[in-house]
């Protein structure tokens, strides 16, 4: 368990998403990086999305809200509240994508100490397979934008040579 490959399981018949990822740092540090805004702003989300709102009230009953802004100005907001906090091992929180506010999900994040670092296991449980799929599709939108932007960069890089 030392590869940093992302394991992603989106089963067709159950409204869940499972993510497993090894991270080369101890759970204490990973927990801090994943829960404090000053750290989250440095890495959360793909590079092309700017994190314009990052509010965290880290206590049971407290909540968080993040808003990503894409280069074209469109924004994706999501928020939730903390149900369980057991630093640096476990967080249970609700997750509401503001584009589909009637379909909250429950996310459980576990940080397991393993040799050389931390195994992060995140499970999200949605209210139906359809809303789980919609959630994945919202990530897709960001991913597609990113892909197009990379294409733009590639084309921009090729342009001078083509014009020469």
């Amino acid at each position, binding site marked *: 368990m030392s590869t940093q490959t992302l394991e992603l399981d989106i089963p067709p018949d159950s409204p869940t998403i499972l993510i497993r990822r090894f991270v080369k740092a101890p759970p204490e540090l990973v927990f801090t990086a994943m829960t404090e805004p000053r750290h989250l702003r440095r890495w959360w989300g793909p590079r092309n999305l700017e994190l314009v709102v990052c509010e965290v009230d880290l206590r049971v009953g407290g909540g968080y809200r993040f808003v990503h802004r894409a280069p074209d100005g469109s924004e994706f907001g999501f928020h939730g509240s903390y149900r369980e906090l057991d630093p640096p091992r476990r967080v249970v929180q609700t997750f509401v994508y503001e584009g589909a506010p009637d379909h909250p999900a429950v996310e459980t994040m576990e940080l397991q100490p393993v040799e050389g670092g931390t195994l992060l296991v995140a499970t999200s449980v949605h209210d139906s*397979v359809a809303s789980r799929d919609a959630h994945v599709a919202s990530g897709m939108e960001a991913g597609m934008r990113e892909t197009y932007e990379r294409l733009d960069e590639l084309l921009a890089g090729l342009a001078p040579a083509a014009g020469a």
Partner: protein
Amino acid sequence: MQGQLDRTFAALADPTRRAIVARLAHGEASVLELAAPFAMSQPAVSKHLKVLEAAGLISRRPDAQRRLCRLAPEGLKAVSDWADSYRRFWEESFSRLDDYLDELQRDHPQPQGEPP
């Protein structure tokens, strides 16, 4: 493109239609064969097939007295790209997290995780 994807996902939001797609992953089948595992009439299954066809997920061709259904690779590619993009979202976040944690550990070295 987005409209087509919306149709694709709307089509797959139904468990019967997902089951039909799963069955067709094993090869072509007639409406009668597809209807067999379900407690529903052949016309009801035909209705689902129409939705899948409009979504670009299956195609149908006549074969003697019946019509055979098969998966349409382009429609399925849209579905697999969908999960791939979600994966990319997380892979890029985690790769940024890796870099950031490296930076933090370089600037503030600390003993490696003694389990508390």
